[in-house]
Structures are given as structure tokens and as C-alpha cells.
């Protein structure tokens, strides 16, 4: 696989689709959650309004270079993640720049945005942003662990680290999905999935009911707009990875839309019915339940 210029517009098109899909889907999920709680919820186009509003805000301040760069890191992380993962299996144009690296690249690149965001918020000087960052990082490290184990398990199972090849191996029927060929690894991975989508019970870091801490409270205007953009594409980017390696990937955009939506609903549903964990409880939870499943996964391969 080598680079050709045509890939640039292809990738941008993919990005565009995913962005709009994300904006709509997150609103829908939010609306669903509100309905469960007996509230009317937001209109599905609310995300567009917020985005435009934030871009349009005229009062804007800067605490310094890192503060300025934080959202840039964040969004670059989200976009980069999309670019490094093939979106649609078999599609000539939705392969993005996946030739740059394999699954490992995707896994590690997840941290790129997190790091930049945390640094940017840190420079704001607000003590509570640091608390939020420290909580978030502490939790995510424990939550990602089962995922790492699951990835290792399926990499061994398929004897490859290439996402495309993993998806290819799952073609030809529902029961070729990793979900069925290696349910334990999938179970382990789902711990991580639920744990990192920032939904209850693992959302103490950004929960509105908590003291307003963490990066979102530090930013405004276009900064916040960039972050919001990321908030809608990043979960999708991550979901694409899960979809690709555990759920057979997607051969067309419709399949993509459905699979991502269903996957995305899992943490949403769990979140609606579960109370919130404190951070150390989350960590213990992942170590106590997620980790053993992950261990089992790599032992069973």
C-alpha cells in the first residue's frame, strides 16, 4: 500500500461523513437517554447549533501556548485516529491512510489527543482541571487494559496486526465475527469500550453533576468547538476499531451506520441504568472484572 494523492480527498470525504453521522447520532442517543428519564430531550440538530454558536463566540482568551494547542492536539487525535483506520472494508476510497500503520498505531494514537488535552487544560491554571485530568487518566489506564489484552488475543488468533486483514478474516457470515469465534476477547474488550466512552458508571470525570472540573470547563469559543467536534468523531473512531476487529467490520456505509449505532448504544444503555463509580472504584472494577477476562482471553487463544 502506498500513498497516492487521490487518497487525500477520499479521506476527507470519510471524515465528513463520520462527522455528520457523529453529530446526529450523539444527539439521538442523548435524546433516547432523556426519554428514558422522562424528559423531552434535545432536538437532533442541537449539536450543529452548539458547534456554530461556539465557533461564533467573540470573547476568547488564552492562557498560553499549551492552552492554545490543547484542543488542536485533541482534534488532531480524533481525526488522526479516523485516518489511520480503514472505515469500510473493501471500499477503495474509505481506506484512509491506513497504510501508515496497523492496529498498534491506532491503539497508541488514542493517547495523542488525551495527552495534548490534558496539557492544555493544565496550563489554564485552574486547580480543578488538574483534578479532572488526574482522575481521567487514572481511570483510562485501568479501563484500557482489557482492551490491550483482547487485541493481543485476537492478533494471535488471526496472526496479524493489520486491521484490514482482521476484518477480511471475519467475512463470510455472522459466525466468522470475532464476537463468536472469540467471545472472551470481545467480552474483555467491551469492558474497555464501556469504560472509555465516558458514560455512567464511568463518567465521574466529566459528569455535570460533579463539581465542574476537567478540560471542558476550561475552554470556550472555537476551542470548545474543536473539542466538541472531537467529542462526536472520537467515539465513532473508536467504535470503528471495535467494529472492525470484533464485529466483522462494515462492507458498506449502511452496515457501518447500524453497527456503530448499536455498539454506541451499549454504554448508553448501561449508563442509563447504573449509578456512577468513584475513580478508585472504577479502577478496582476493571482490575477485578475486566482484567481476569482479558487474561482468560489471551490464555484461551
Amino acid at each position, binding site marked *: 500500500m502506498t500513498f497516492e494523492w487521490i487518497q487525500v480527498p477520499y479521506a476527507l470525504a470519510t471524515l465528513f461523513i463520520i462527522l455528520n453521522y457523529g453529530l446526529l447520532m450523539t444527539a439521538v442517543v442523548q435524546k433516547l437517554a432523556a426519554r428514558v428519564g422522562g424528559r423531552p430531550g434535545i432536538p437532533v440538530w442541537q449539536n450543529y447549533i452548539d458547534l456554530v454558536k461556539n465557533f461564533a463566540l467573540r470573547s476568547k482568551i488564552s492562557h498560553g501556548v499549551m492552552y492554545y494547542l490543547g484542543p488542536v492536539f485533541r482534534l488532531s487525535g480524533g481525526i488522526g485516529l479516523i485516518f489511520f483506520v480503514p472505515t469500510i472494508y473493501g471500499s477503495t476510497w474509505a481506506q484512509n491512510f491506513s*497504510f501508515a500503520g496497523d492496529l498498534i498505531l491506532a491503539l497508541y494514537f488514542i493517547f495523542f489527543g488525551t495527552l495534548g488535552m490534558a496539557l492544555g487544560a*493544565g496550563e489554564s491554571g485552574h486547580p480543578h482541571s*488538574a483534578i479532572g485530568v488526574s482522575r481521567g487518566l487514572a481511570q483510562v489506564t485501568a479501563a484500557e487494559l482489557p482492551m490491550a489484552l483482547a487485541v493481543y488475543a485476537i492478533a494471535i488468533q488471526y496472526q496479524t496486526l493489520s486491521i484490514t486483514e482482521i476484518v477480511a478474516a471475519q467475512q463470510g457470515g455472522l459466525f466468522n465475527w470475532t464476537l463468536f469465534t472469540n467471545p472472551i476477547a470481545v467480552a474483555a474488550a467491551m469492558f474497555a469500550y464501556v469504560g472509555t466512552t465516558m458514560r455512567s458508571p464511568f463518567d465521574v470525570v466529566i459528569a455535570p453533576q460533579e463539581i465542574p472540573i476537567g478540560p471542558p470547563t476550561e475552554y470556550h469559543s472555537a476551542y470548545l468547538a474543536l473539542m466538541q467536534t472531537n467529542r462526536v468523531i472520537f467515539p465513532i473512531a473508536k467504535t470503528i476499531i471495535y467494529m472492525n476487529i470484533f464485529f466483522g467490520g462494515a462492507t458498506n456505509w449502511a452496515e457501518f451506520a447500524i453497527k456503530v449505532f448499536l455498539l454506541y448504544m451499549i454504554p448508553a444503555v448501561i449508563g442509563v441504568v447504573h449509578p456512577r463509580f468513584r475513580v478508585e472504584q472504577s479502577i478496582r472494577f476493571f482490575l477485578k472484572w475486566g482484567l481476569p477476562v482479558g487474561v482468560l482471553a489471551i490464555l484461551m487463544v
Partner: protein
Amino acid sequence: MVSPVLIIAIGLGTAFALGLLGSTRKTLLFGVTLAALAAMATISLIWLVALATGATETAEIHTAGVAPPFAINLRVGIAEAALLATVTLTGLLAALSLRAQLLTLGRGGMAVLLVLVMAISGLVMTRDLFNIFVFIELVAIATAGLVLLSEDTRAVCAGFKFLVVSQIIAILLLVGIIFTYHANGSLNIDDIGATPVAAQGAALAMFLLLIALVIELKPFPANGWALDIYTSAHPGFSAIFSAATGSAALFVVDKVVAPAGAEWLPLLTGIGLLSFVGSNVVALRQDNDRRLLGYSSVGQLGLVLAVIGQRDVLGDAYLYVAGGLVLSHAVAKAGLFWMSAILRGRKLQDWAAIRARAPMVLAFATFIAMLVGLPPFPGFYAKWDLAQALVAAGRLPVLGLILLGVLIEAAYLFRWFGFAIKREAPESGLSANMVDCGITFAAVAGGWALGWIWGAIPGQHNVLATLPVLAVVAFIALEPLPAKLKNVLAIAALLGWFALVYGDYDPMRLIFAVVMIPGGAVILLASFSETGRRIGFYPSAMAMYAGLALLLEANTFFEFFAAWEVMTLGSYFLILRGRMSEPHALSYMLFSLGGAFALLAGFALASGGVQPFALDQLGTVTAELAPWVFVLLAIGFMTKTAAMGLHIWLPGAHAEAETDVSPMVSGILLKAGLFGLFVMLMQLGRQSLWGVDLTVVLAWIGAISAFLGAVLSIFQEDAKRLLAYSSISQMGYALFGVALMNHLGWLLAMMFVINHYVYKSMLFLAVGGVYKRTHTKLMYQMGGLITLMPFTFVSVLVGIIAMSGVPPLSGFGGRWIFYNAIMDADLRLPLILIFMAGPIGFLYLFRLIHTIFLGQLKDPHRQLKEAPFWLVLPQMIFAAFLIAFAVLPGMALQRVDGYIGSIFGDQPLIWQGRAITSEFGYWNPVAIMVVIAVVFVAVFLILIAKNHDAQKVKQFNIVFSAERPYRPETTHFAWNFFAPYRKAMGILETPVVTSFWGGVTDGVNGAAEFTRRFYTGNGQTYAAHVLLFVVAVYLIAMGGVA
């Protein structure tokens, strides 16, 4: 050639003749005494040189014109000549040291001194049993007399105790001699040996004879009487007592045991080992300098006694080994006693006074290195040959006990050295004068000369004659120059050496060489920020680099081990320079020595006593030994890489070291251990013990280190400690990679060698720069330094991205190789720990950058400037390298990859243009970098388009729920940063390993405290100890015979 009898005649004649000169002209008397001693020394030296160069044969001197055994005869061979030279020179220098006392007391004192030296010389030369008795009594009486020269009135008690024990020795000796005579019909030692007579009681007579001579060696625990002499006598005399008398007494035992027969050797070994280990344990709790030296002396005598007990297996090396140990001990101990004359205080801490004089520190270091047996001194060569012989003969327990004893001895000696370097110096604690200093330096010169001689003996590898070590010596001589000039020279030396050797190395060695030698030069750039002369830094640093350079050059086991020890010694001195590093440097030294001893044993086991043994023959070791060699070597190397369990020295040592030292010892020194592991695994490959694959054990240790190192790191409040624990974690990764025993695992480890050097050096320099400005290493006392120290921030940022493995910097390459490596391996479980370690590593790194550079700026730091240029420059070089290495990993790795492929016979990576493909995945560093850069710039441009006019606000322009916090600068969140983690996983922080080693230390110290209560101070009790000792040994020996 003058006859050696003249040594006796001159000593005795002058002692008698002093009375003819009248008692008033004391200066004249003293002059004559010195002249006589000098004449005796000259004769000894003439013989020594003649015998050593082969100009003459061993001399047999008959007295009374009759051949032995009918008249007393003397012998001067090479051993005798060397001892005579030691004895007479010690006597000469001791006379100078004792000059004030001798001049006060007049001819009596001088005569006694002359007789003492004469008698010790006689003891060395004589071949007659009864004559030995006469000389021993002469020595005893003269000792009792010279003890009185001390200003310390307690010396009188000591002298009396000594006499009481001398009486007991005399009784046993005489009974032994007469019955030996009865059994053999001769008093001549050679005659007794030549005509074995199996008369009844001969064994018992020999036992009495030997035990009396052994007690003369002050064996533990029957030695209270001797220790009191060391404590209270004048140090000038103690030097004789320890160096000359002790050596001669050892030689007498050696002489007598030859005819007595090999069946006595185990007994001597046992007594020697007990004495060596026991005395050293007791010495641990000693705080009087001279008494400490006393314990050390009796310990060393025990060591040599044990070596005498091993003469049956030492063969030709016997003289070399025993001689090396005896002479090292004699020179060092005499030197230390003479040095103690310059010090006013008697506490160990009072030795801090020597710090005011750099040459004194050099002297102290020389003596301690000699005693512990570090290169380039004879004790080192002796230790090596001894270990070879012992292992070849299968006497591992003996070797184990000897090494244990050396380790304990090193513990208190290096603790003492630490006191001298670090403790507060007492005011006017030094009464230095030309003569005492001159004497001390004569001993120093003697020590180095001996080191040269021991190395220059054919068949040995002369450590001192290697170019790097010579450079170290040159840097000692260059000490008066200003630091900046020396720094230029040091960098030139490193680069020059590299230019000299790099062509000879295979790619793997070359990577290590680049990291160690030019890498060291880059770090040395930071040293330009130091002013003044920086006494002590350059010799130490160059010693470390010399060790590293020689390590890469090493072709044989011995060369490798010698380089290892040189490196250890140099780095110890470097680490000790840190402000609070005294205890940490000590634990570093002890762990390093312990590890080195494991190496020593491992090498000895592998070579089976064959010397020299080429390093690349390690693989030829037999199948049943190989796992043990593996275990010993691995322990040795893992001590250096600070694998979990052996790691407790590292955090303190790295964190408390100076700003430019931390990167050296962390970024460079740790790699020596990895190099060793590579060398070992390349030759030995996989080994199993009791069905356990040892490489799997290594992998587990690596994984545990990687995980626990990271966990401990996130809980640190001290920035340098955080980095130090991080090194443990990183070395754990590398160890894991090496232990995978596949191509990619090794490539991974090589990647860590490069990466860890770069980012750890960079981060240590950055944190060091911050420390230089803020004067604190505690992160919660800092914050918001980003605007004040932007360059430092950038280097930390780059370092962190690289280290945590986040694309696009070079750390990711390591992770990618790691995943590909483990795809091949059957190891699953330890991986879990590695997986956990990764994100946790991210946590501590974030904490580092956040709490120092982000958040609230502290009030006292508002006026800070960027770190000094010379600290920033290497950081920028490192940062540039990291980025370049991230894009073009092939520039360093491709050749190594090929080389490793030639070892494993596979080639899993395909380097195609800029992309790298493996069996499982692919990695295109250029593409990654470009994509990320383009996306980043694009988003950045969008933001600038919108927010280019953002109002720059002060950091405290923040709101909290619509209110401005009161004094926001007090609300920086940094202490206990990852509190939830501590709550969830704090149990991992329990200092189990530290408690374990602490328990070991406490246990040994407790044993020392308990044992030393044994020395009640009562002379009669001491006499009873001696008798008890005799009876106990009698029972054991007879039990052994029966």
C-alpha cells in the same frame, strides 16, 4: 649481592650500638636509626629486584658454617624478599611516623623499634622451628614495648592483655615444638617435611604448634587482646603491627603448614573464614576508626589464612594470590593507620576533615579500593585467580563465604568513605604535616606500583596499562586545571577513543558504543555549566567511561570483569558527589559489588579455572553447569539494570546525583547491564533449571520490573525519583525484550538502549535544570514554569511523548516492535504486566510535565530564568535526535536488525523504502509523521483563523463556579496527584523489597552488635577466649581426624 643476614645484623647491631652514642644526642640517635632501617630496606629491595628479574636464585643462608638441619638456616626467595621489603619499608616509614615519641623517649624506644623490625625480618627468613619461637617472642616483647609509645594511657592495659596472651601462645608453641622435635628428630622445617615420621603424638604436637601460630594471627573471636592494641597504640606502630607483623605471622603459618601436610589445610581454611566473616561483621558496628581498622586487619589476616588453607588447589597461582592479598592489605592498612595520625578525631565521621585536601581523598579511596580488592590493585587480580581456582576445585562454599566477607567489609569501608566525603567536617580536624602526609603518600604510591606489578606479570591482563585507564590516571594528574578546560579534554578523550575503536565493532556493540562513548560526550556538554575546578568529578567520570569503554573491548572473562569493576568504582564516586547521596551511593556500591561477585562466580564456574577464557567461548560450557552460570551472570547483570528485587539502590542513587551525573548513571550506565545480558544470552541461549526455562524467569522479572517500577513512579513527589523509578520500569521492558529470545525481542531491547538513553538523559537534564533554578526537586513545590523555561518544557514534552510510546515519536517504534515480538513468543502471562505498565507510564510522565510546567506558578519562582545554556543544549540535541530517529529508525536499527538476524537466522522485518513490514503488521514512520503533522497544522490553522485574536490573560484569570478563587496560587493540585490510584492500588506501593533488604541489613548489624559484646575488655576473659578457642579447635580437629 649483600647477604640478607645483614638485615638482622644491622638491625640488631644498631640497636645495641645506640647505647654507645650517649643518650643526649637524640637527633643523632634518630638519624642513625633511620639510616639503619633504610639500609635494611635497601638490602631487601635489592634482593627483591634481583629475584624478581631472575638475576639471582633463591638464597639459602647457613649460619655457623654448618648445613641445615644441624644449624639454623635462613632462606630468601621471592616471597621472603617481598615480605622483607614490606616489613622493612613499613618499619622505616613507621619510624618517621613515630618520630615525636621516639625523640622524646630516646634510644630505648628506637632500639626496640629496630629490634622489632629485625625480629619480623628474622621471622620471615628463618627455617628453624625453635628460631621461629625466639623471633615470635622478640616480636611480642617489642610490641609490648612500642605499645607504650602511645599517648593514650589505655595502651598500658592493652599491652598487658597482649602479654598475657603471648604467654599462652608461648606455652603452646614450646610444647608443640618440643614434641615435633621428638617426633621428627629435627627442628628444621624443610627437614621435617622431607622425612615424615609417624611417631605417636606427632599430629597433636603439630596441632599445638599450628594453633599457637594461628592465635598469633588474632583469629576471631579469640582476638580481643589484639584489637585493644590497634585501638590504643600509636598509629605509626599499629601500621607495623598490622602490616608487618601480621604478614610475617601469615608467612610463618605458611612455612609450617607445608611440612605439616595437607590434612591441616581445611582447619586453617575454617578458622580463616570464620575470622574473616566474623571480624567484618563485628566491624559493622564500630565507630572508632582505629578499632575499625583493627577489625579489618584481623579479618584480612583471616582471609589470607583461608587462602593458605586453599594452597592445595591454587597450585602455581598460590604465591600470586596470597601475595596479592597480603601486600594489598599491608600497604593499605599501613597507609590508613598513618593517615589516622593526621586526623584529630577518632570517630569515623571525623574523617570528613580530609575532604579539605583532595590528595588525601585520593589516598583514602586508594586504600579502600585496595582492601576491597577493586582494580587496578593486586587484591583484584588475586580475588579473580582465587575464585577461578576455588570454583575449578569445586569449593564453592569457600568462595561464597569469602565473597560474603568481602561484601561486608566493603559495607563498612565504603560507609566510612561516605562519611569522609559527606559528613560535616569537624573544625581543625586535621593536623597535617609534611612528614605524615609524605608517609601516607608513599603508601599510596606503593599501592599503585603494586597494582602495576600485579597486572604486568606475564599471563595477566594489566588493567592499568589500558589506554582508558591511563586516561583516568591522567585526569587525576590534571585535577588542578579549571573544570571547563578539563571538560573539553574529557569530551575530546571520549570522542578520540570512539574514533579509534568504532571500526572494530559489530553493529550491536556499535550501538552500545555510540550510546556510551559519544553519548557520554553529549551529556558532558552539560558539565560546561559548572564553574571552578570541580575536584573529583573528572577522574570519577572518566573511570566510569573507561570501564564502559573497556567493557566493549573485552575479549576475555577477566577483561570483562575488570572493566565492570572499574566502571562500578568510577560510578560510585560519581554518585557519591550528590548532595544527599551518601546512603544511596553506599547501597549502590554494595549491590554492585554483590552483583559483581555473582559475575565473578559465574565466570569462574564457566571457565573451570582455565585462564584466559575468551568471552565468546562462554557457550562451550558444559550442559550441567550452563544453567548455574546463567543464573549467576543474570543476577550480576540484573543488579546493574536494577531489576525488581535488586532495585532499591537505584532511586536514591539516581535521584540524589548531581545534575549532569544523573543522566550519565541512568542513561548510560544501566546499559552496561543490558550489554552483559546480550553477551550472555548470545552465548548461552536458553537454559533450564529444574525444568524451568530461565529466560522465562527473566521475562517475568522484566515484566514485574516494568510494572512495579511504573507503579512506584507515579507515587513519587520528587521529580528525579520519579525518573529513577521510571528507569527501573524501562529497563524492565528491555529485560523482557532480551528474555523473549527472538529476533524482535532483541531488536526491541536495542531500541530501548537508544531511546532510553536519549529521553532519560534529556529528562534528567531538564529536571536538573529546573532544580538548578528552583532549588527543589519536589514537584508540588513547582508549577507553571512553562513560560519561564520554554526550552526545558519542550524537551520534557518531546521526552514524554517519546517515552510513552505515543505516535509519532520514536517510542512508538519500540511499542510496535514489542507487539510484533510477542506475537512470536509463547509467553502470555507476563505480558499482562507489561500491558499494564504502559498506561501507568503515561500517568507518571504526565504528572512530571504537568506539575512542574503547568498549573500555578509559585510566588518564589516568578523571576526564574531558563536553565543554563549548557544544560539546554544537549537537551535540544536529544530532542532533535528523537524526532529524526522517529522518522528514520532505520538509520540505527537496520544494521542491527541484520546483525541480529545473523544470530537467529531469520529476518522478520522487511525494510522497504521508508516502511517496515513484519510478518504481522506494518509501520511507516514517515507516513505517520506526515499525516499527524498535516492534520495538526490544519486544525491549528482553523483555530488560528478563529482565535488569533484571543486575549492573553494572566494565569489567575480563572473562575470557579462563577467566582474567582481566593489566592488561586495556593490551589495547585500536585501533591498525591493520582490519589485514586493510590486508593485503588496503593498496596503495590508497600516497600516489600526495601523491607527485605532493610531486614537483611538490620539482621547483620544486630548480629554485629550482639557479637561485639563478646569483647568485654577484660584481659583475663580474652585469655580465656584464646584457651576456649584452642580447645574448641582441638575438639573439632580431633573429631575430624577421628
